């Protein structure tokens, strides 16, 4: 287990952090884009 932060563990934590950030970005960006377009559609309808 790697709960302590020795030199090598820091490398693993860093990669884990980048992984989470990139996956989140891939999910958030299209969601935000679609929400914006749906808002535009609603404004257009009204």
């Amino acid at each position, binding site marked *: *287990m*790697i*709960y302590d932060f*020795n*030199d*090598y*563990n820091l*490398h*693993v934590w*860093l*990669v*884990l952090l*980048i*992984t989470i950030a*990139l*996956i989140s*970005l*891939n*999910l958030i*960006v*299209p*969601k935000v*884009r*679609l929400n914006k*377009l*749906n808002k*535009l*559609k609603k404004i*257009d*309808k009204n």
Partner: protein
Amino acid sequence: MNRAFNSLKTFYHKLGSSPWFYRISEITIPYLALFSFLFLSIGIVWGVFFSPTDFKQGDVYRIIYMHVPAASVSQSIYYTMTVAAVVSIIWRMKMAGIFIKSMAPIGASFTFLALISGSIWGQPTWGTWWIWDARLTSTLVLFIFYIAIISLYSSFSEKKSADQAVSILTLVGAVNLPIIKKSVDWWNTLHQPASIKFTESSSISPEMLYPLIISIFGFYLVVLLSGLMAMRAEIAKREINKEWFKNY
């Protein structure tokens, strides 16, 4: 046999319909989100926190649970984009263009993750962040192709011409895929050969292998999920003035 072929043909034709795809993907997304979260968290938590420590590398080898899945999906995404490029060039299917446009940024981000995680792993184990080794260089070329595809697409104002140009560029980049795969066999590289093999037994211990397989599966699910979400956004952007979308 004939019935199976006919249903496959119907499915293929349905795939070309953006309203159908938009509706079906909306139903699929919540289930995909649930399963990708489950597989990813089980694979990564098991691998990073509970799998045994490597006798040579210590804990730093745990980067494998993010590096290998990222490298695997980064190439698979390009393979699927190549198929879409062929479809786009031959049949001019609109959805194929939408697929390439939506998947390129996802592919680029996972290739970036494969490169950066490999670099962070290389520093303590190889003693260097980067080396112009065949596997690393061909993966960097893959990343450059993803960026070129994104840039080329944004340089066109007309979607149909953009789809065609990007499809041709995608096909050109496909030449690099077998080079990445075979780079560790063709050249003497610092990067090790594949540890997981489908035709023979893997050189990695089962306690380390199982979380890795789960993590790889989780990454594929997350790619599918983000791909569907990106494609929905792209369909909405292109068809915002279409009657079906206004009434959806």
